[in-house]
């Protein structure tokens, strides 16, 4: 329960922090940290326009997408407090539930019969396929390291052993930050501020969504960011008491947001054709973690 509340709270101003970081780094004052959320509220109040080509799938997809991320958020623990849903192998369901939402978003993009949205859908499908192995190997390494197979058990037993766990946690955060960037279609893969359809991924997929649906999709992105931030924070919180863990949670989340802002300010977007190579790096880094774990556990002996 704790993590659900914290993530929901964080999701309100996560993107605001990113935007603020970016504006400060580019020498502007920038909007307040609640501005993205205000925009979303405004969208929630608006009416909507549906394309005549679309079917029911287009109408339900944003809701299903939001539900899938919310369901995934329910599985994320906070330190010693397990998530709302916690069982052995919950991270498998976590990944597959998110994939369900993605599936519907991809087909809803194809539902519009647009000449652009298929492009984004195609890229989203490919990149999320390439990201998935990294996530599973990462969790597999930690399952091997701790001998546990659920989010909560893995995180709560992570730091009982040696100090190596913090090193692994740092490497894992690197992978997870990049997974979050890819899943949310941010730089260096995709530029959310671009206005050319040919170079967009996520934005081009939702060209035809408007009003409430668009608001829901944008909010889901924020929620997803906060969710990945929460997972990253779990690598360091361990079983610390709430007085320490909750401030640490916010510090790590803010660090994450600032890191995203810094990356976006100083990096250019990759050429679309080079993106797969970049995504493969993640899998190799998680393989590195896996072999590191094997080394620590002395399996190579």
């Amino acid at each position: 329960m704790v993590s659900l509340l914290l993530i929901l709270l964080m999701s309100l101003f996560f993107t605001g922090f990113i935007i603020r970081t970016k504006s400060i780094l580019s020498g502007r004052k920038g909007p307040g940290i609640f501005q993205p959320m205000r925009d979303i509220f405004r969208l929630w109040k608006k009416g909507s326009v549906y394309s005549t080509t679309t079917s029911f799938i287009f109408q339900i997809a944003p809701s299903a997408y939001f539900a899938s991320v919310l369901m995934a958020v329910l599985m994320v623990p906070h330190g010693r407090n397990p998530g709302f849903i916690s069982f052995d192998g919950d991270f498998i369901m976590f990944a597959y539930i998110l994939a369900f939402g993605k599936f519907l978003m991809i087909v809803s993009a194809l539902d519009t019969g647009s000449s652009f949205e298929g492009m984004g859908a195609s890229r989203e499908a490919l990149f999320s396929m390439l990201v998935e192995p990294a996530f599973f190997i990462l969790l597999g390494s930690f399952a091997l390291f701790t001998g546990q197979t659920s989010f909560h058990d893995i995180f709560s037993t992570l730091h009982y052993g040696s100090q190596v766990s913090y090193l692994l946690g740092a490497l894992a955060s690197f992978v997870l930050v990049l997974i979050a960037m890819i899943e949310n279609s941010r730089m260096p893969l995709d530029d959310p501020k671009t206005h050319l359809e040919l170079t967009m991924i996520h934005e081009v997929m939702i060209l035809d969504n408007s009003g409430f649906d668009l608001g829901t999709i944008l909010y889901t992105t924020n929620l997803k960011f906060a969710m990945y931030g929460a997972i990253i924070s779990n690598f360091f919180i361990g079983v610390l008491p709430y007085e320490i863990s909750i401030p640490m949670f916010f510090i790590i989340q803010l660090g994450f947001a600032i890191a995203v802002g810094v990356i976006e300010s100083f990096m250019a977007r990759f050429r679309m054709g080079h993106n797969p190579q970049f995504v493969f790096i993640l899998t190799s880094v998680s393989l590195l973690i896996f072999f590191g774990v094997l080394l620590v556990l002395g399996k190579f002996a």
Partner: protein
Amino acid sequence: MEKTLIEICNLLAIVAIVGILFLKTKGRGILTIGIITLQVIINTVVALSVFANGPVEYFYPGSFVTGAIPVRIDYLSAWFILVISFTFLTGAWYGIQYMKKYIEQSDNLALHAVAFLLLYTSLIDICLVQNSIVLLVIWEIMALSSFVVIIFEHYKSTTLKAGINFLIQSHVCILLLTIAFMWVKVKTGTFDFNAISSFSTTQTKITGFALFILFFTGFAIKAGFVPFHTWLPLAHPAAPAHISGIMSGVIIKIGIYGILRVLMLIKTDMVTVGYFILFVSLITGLYGVMLAIVQHNLKKLLAYHSIENIGIIGIGIGLGCLGLGYNNQLLVLAGFGGALLHVLNHSLFKSLLFFSAGNVYQAKHMMNIESLGGLIKRMPHTGYLFLIGSLAICGLPPFNGFISEFFLYNGLFHGLVSSNLQFILFLLFSILALVIIGGLALICFTKAFGIVFLGSPREEIHEEKNIEVPMRIWPMYLIVLLIMIIGLFPLIFNTYLLNVISLYGPGLNPQAKVHFGEILTQLSIVGWYSLGFVALVFLIYNLKLLITRRRIVNQDTTWGCAYTGQTGKLQYTASSFIRSYRKLAEPILSIKKKKEEAKGLYPGIIMQKTHALDKIETWLIDKPLLKVRKFLGSFVFLQNGNIQAYILYGFVFVGLALLLPSIIEKIVVIVKFLNQL
């Protein structure tokens, strides 16, 4: 009781086949469907009673050739009987509506009905009989009758070609099985399956493994493991939709049944066997889905997906064998449990997908994905049924595919906590492969569903009306019902599964029961949360409806960057949807491309063609065959059509036949003479 019921079931088939002779076309259809339904009911009763009262065994005296014929209905047989029967039930009821389009081909339909009955009966009998020579005979009946049902549209040359390809490959399969069975027979003197056990226990590991490889290769041709998969992508598009569904759902599964049966009997080094099956399955799974994505023909795409799913089932079997070899009970449970459940699950969603594809085919007379589009508006039932099938085959919750994949992941992640490095690495690659298969399946089915059913039509094709009649749709909804039940309440089959798994290994100890209990609790949790997820989706959707109730909702055309003309042809196509994937996979696959670009001031027609070749088929079958043909072709001068030459051959032959003995005699005499010198 089981004996009588099985005999009635076989007798019913014979009665129906005789009855078909005396009826008109319509009566034949009603008779066939009636008999199939009756047989399904009888067989279901038999299977359920086996699960309730334990295995049944009885003998027929047989003849001096066969020896006693043992019939053993154990849990494995019962499980496969249930799977086969359900798919045949829905397949028959769907098929009779599908076949209405061909009502004027009366004789052809009669042959189809006879073969269909034979196919079902022989498949059931294969699961029961445990005498190798009788099994081979039934296997042959099964192969021939499936050949006949596949080539229903035999007036098309592609269909006939695919059928002959199937016929040859299934006979290579029978040949290998015959060699394996005869090996055991010669060494032990009996055709009883138990001889495999007694024979393999006395042999060295290598001999045992060789025997297993013979069996495995034979059954793998039927099941479609790479590199023996090449008949599947040809046969599936050629057959009528209900046959494709049945073929993918259960005929290839009979190969899996064979492998599972042999694994139960053979006593050899299970670790080697496990690694071998796992290795083959990983390649099968990945290769199947990688090729599936680049297909343009909807049914061919589904056929390659069958290969992928056989790979997933194989991963489960391989894990189970490794569990047996390393004496890891949890792995046995998760591996075999996942494999058996996936056999059922795949038979459900794959038949659903093929039936939907059949509806599309009969509406549009077209299977080319690139020409279709926007069908969900014209055929809503088919569209949503295909969507459910797609979600299930991608292994997404809350559908049944997720349950069996979760089973496998469970085994894989628990197996990681082991001390054997080689084993850990293999598990790691299995996890990687399973994840990549899942991701690629997602690309494949977003493409198939999105391009065929969504958007607007890409070409003006004549469309037939009244495809979605209730009689045709209800078997498909029946399948969906089962898919949902397994997805949301995965525990309904747990006792059956535990019974089947307990046949492997020297009895499951109490600790294993506890493990299985743990897996089941997790599964029931997964089921409940899946239900919760469905509720959450509908809650949020209804919340949205409630909030936006008073808002203004307008309709307009899709945003086209200020272009307002017809956009049907401007839509994203299937080829462009997978272009970036194709670029990545190009080094592994072989894709033929043909391109004509726009040239000059007044360009003519521009076009681009891509055609995916099956590299393994090219290298393993086409090229060697070409070599053989070339070699044999060098003797073509002998067959010159000259009567005189043929008479000369006759004389030469007769002369040689007569003279050869005496020539040899002379040579012997000379050799003897030389020796005496």
